[in-house]
């Protein structure tokens, strides 16, 4: 990764830190308590942004990278690493979505958990992508693992709308999109709207930063693997050379015409392990 990318990562990280701190400050001290829900409403500055990152940014990105990996023309381990990073961060955000939702639900509805559409499909999503991470931990050739994981992510992603839809048909008592209710003007006003908007920005920045960092870790791990591979390749190549050098080439009278004779293979440079694959 070039120095510029690292610099960008740092800037985004800094911006994420600042916006998050600002959100916390605005959310806890500046904005007034809400009319009905009182100080509980302050959770709204974080919960929807976290859910937005988990459900749309993370898994959208994962699905997109999976498609691009599986498509022959754009196949590159770049997409695999990106997808894996997105899922991993997404799992954390999904878990946070459930936790913050639960914290909200307990005082509001009097229960930690209700079997509503949103909660249930979010929980199922979490399990689906935990499966992805489990699959990813199974040791395999990078190419093989990438393929497997891309399919798993894609299948899981396809499942999400079906899950959401089917659970939605269950009787639901969850509040429907308070902010993005079509046809209504924003119900949240003034400083609260600002704070919530900032929350979205902050969480998105945190997400981007985490993915970038996670990507870098993944890249470095791959690079170590590649270096090890180069070493083992040249070792193996040399193993063949010792045998060939020990051999005295004999000029056989009945050499097959057209066939390469002798030990042409013994000389020449050690080949590239992954010619142009990455």
């Amino acid at each position, binding site marked *: 990764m070039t120095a510029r990318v690292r610099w960008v990562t740092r800037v985004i990280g800094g911006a994420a830190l600042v916006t998050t701190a600002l959100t916390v400050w605005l959310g806890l001290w500046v904005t007034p308590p809400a009319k009905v829900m009182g100080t509980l409403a302050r959770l709204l500055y974080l919960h929807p942004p976290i859910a937005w990152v988990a459900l749309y940014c993370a898994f959208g990105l994962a699905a997109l990278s999976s498609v691009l990996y599986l498509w022959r023309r754009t196949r590159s381990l770049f997409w695999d690493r990106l997808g894996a990073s997105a899922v991993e961060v997404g799992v954390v955000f999904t878990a946070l979505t459930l936790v913050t939702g639960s914290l909200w639900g307990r005082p509001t509805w009097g229960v930690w958990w209700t079997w509503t559409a949103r909660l249930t499909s979010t929980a199922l999503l979490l399990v689906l992508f935990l499966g992805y991470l489990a699959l990813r931990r199974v040791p395999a050739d990078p190419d093989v693992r990438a393929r497997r994981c891309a399919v798993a992510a894609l299948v899981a992603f396809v499942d999400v709308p079906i899950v959401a839809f089917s659970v939605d048909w269950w009787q639901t008592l969850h509040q429907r999109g308070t902010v993005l209710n079509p046809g209504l003007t924003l119900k949240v006003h003034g400083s609260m709207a600002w704070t919530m908007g900032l929350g979205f920005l902050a969480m998105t920045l945190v997400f981007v930063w985490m993915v970038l960092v996670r990507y870098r870790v993944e890249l470095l791990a791959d690079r170590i693997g590649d270096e090890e591979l180069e070493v083992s390749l040249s070792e193996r190549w040399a193993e063949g050379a010792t045998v060939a050098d020990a051999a005295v080439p004999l000029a056989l009278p009945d050499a*097959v015409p057209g066939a390469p004779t002798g030990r042409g293979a013994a000389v020449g440079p050690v080949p590239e392990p*992954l010619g142009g694959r990455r």
Partner: protein
Amino acid sequence: MDLAVHFRTAVALAGRFPALSGVDLDVAAGEVLAVLGPNGAGKTSLLRACAGLVPVTSGEAVVLGCDLRKDRTLVRRRVGLLGHAPSLYDELTALENVRFAVRATGAGTDRVGPALDRLGLAGRLRRTPAARMSAGQRRRTALAVLVARGPELWLLDEPHAGLDADARAIVGSLVEEAASSGAAVVLTSHEPDLAVPLADRVAVMSGGRVAEERAGGRGAAATERVLVALSQDDVDVA
């Protein structure tokens, strides 16, 4: 001369291990190549790479005119691989196994019967599930699949292993027939005195590449000469 196999500094990975570390190899149509070498030299990987099962990650690899680095699935229907583990379904009989394998390639099943006969699988043996066969019988059944399919490139991984004298003789004549019909044959072996007499050429693998190549020897005298030459070279052939 048509080349059935053309490898140039071909590298193939088994996980993170370079099973092939830069193979240079040409096999002409109608030619029989015996591949010798110690365990772990890359013989099996070479065959699997030729069959398009193991991806070649660098170098050139063209088999039967198909560039394996572009698409390694195209060549599969046209090669026949006899692997260490015969590709048989335990619950199916010899007849059913061969019939399935032949139908799967889209070929007609009229050659199934003669192929089984050829390998000495007749009568009750044909109706025995593979699970209850001996190792030798399973190998014979796997060979019958190849005979019935008639591939353009035969890839035989230690075809002599676990076979009785009778079956070894059959292997020998099958190889000869395949070559004379214009197919190329690549066979590996740990027993040079069995493999070399069948071969037009002998390649010795070591460290995942072809370290040594010899014109081979059909016929006793030529075989003797190659074996002596190889032993003088102090090449580890088995």
